[in-house]
């Protein structure tokens, strides 16, 4: 009887330990699942890509001729690396002015071949 009573105490500890593990597991699952605490899928590059896209399209608007656009685009390509040093931005375009398709690479975030049309 004495032995049996002593063992029962150990079972309580095990039970509490299991309950604690359960609490931790539920906490971790809830942390990942709930939208309130979850890290939102927003990163700096989302705005960076949007910024470059919007301004590249604007570059077409402020360039009245093909020659003007080619000149401005060359400067914009060069200036992007000055404005965002270390980002590894490479911008190119295909097509004929004013219907061009831009292609954007940002090596720092592993983005390659992101295309957008003006």
């Amino acid at each position, binding site marked *: 009887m004495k032995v049996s009573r002593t063992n029962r105490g150990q079972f309580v500890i095990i039970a509490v330990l299991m309950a604690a593990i359960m609490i931790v597991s539920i*906490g971790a699952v809830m942390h990942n699942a709930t939208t309130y605490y979850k890290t939102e899928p927003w990163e700096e590059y989302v705005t960076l890509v*949007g910024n470059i896209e919007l301004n590249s399209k*604007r570059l077409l608007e402020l360039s009245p001729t093909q020659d003007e656009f080619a000149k401005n685009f060359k400067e914009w390509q060069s200036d992007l690396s000055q404005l965002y040093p270390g980002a590894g931005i490479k911008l190119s375009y295909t097509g004929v002015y004013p219907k061009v398709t831009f292609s954007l690479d940002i090596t720092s975030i592993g983005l390659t071949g992101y295309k957008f049309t003006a």
Partner: protein
Amino acid sequence: MIRMKNNKGQMRVIETILAALIIVSALAFVNFFSINPKAAAFEAKDLEKMGYSVLADLDQQGILVSKVYQPSEWGDLKTVLRLTLPVDVYFNLTICKLHEDSLYKVTSIVYGDLTTFSDAKNVASVSYSLVGTSEYGYEPRLLMLQITRG
């Protein structure tokens, strides 16, 4: 028999204390990894996101370009930023001009005391570029926005 009962009671107390310790440490463990809105990491990221969002939104609506390139509109730009950002957020917007591979400061639009930024726990700094306007042609500008909560 009396001694045995006493010992059993002490064991129960120890078990309860152990159980409480395990539960408290489990909660502390979870709390350590969670990033709640009061956490410093969340606050810095939140400010950064807010800064980018406000500049991107104003640019998409065409407000930013019309205000940045005209010195007479800088007062309005300050008002627009004040209205767009939450009341307790202070900002320091520096407009820089890119000329021959160098950046030159054009102006700073500040809302709030400068000590607010030096004393603040969390200050987010974001950069946003503008390519130019139809009126001014190709004239790149870099906007550097610092924001913090007062």
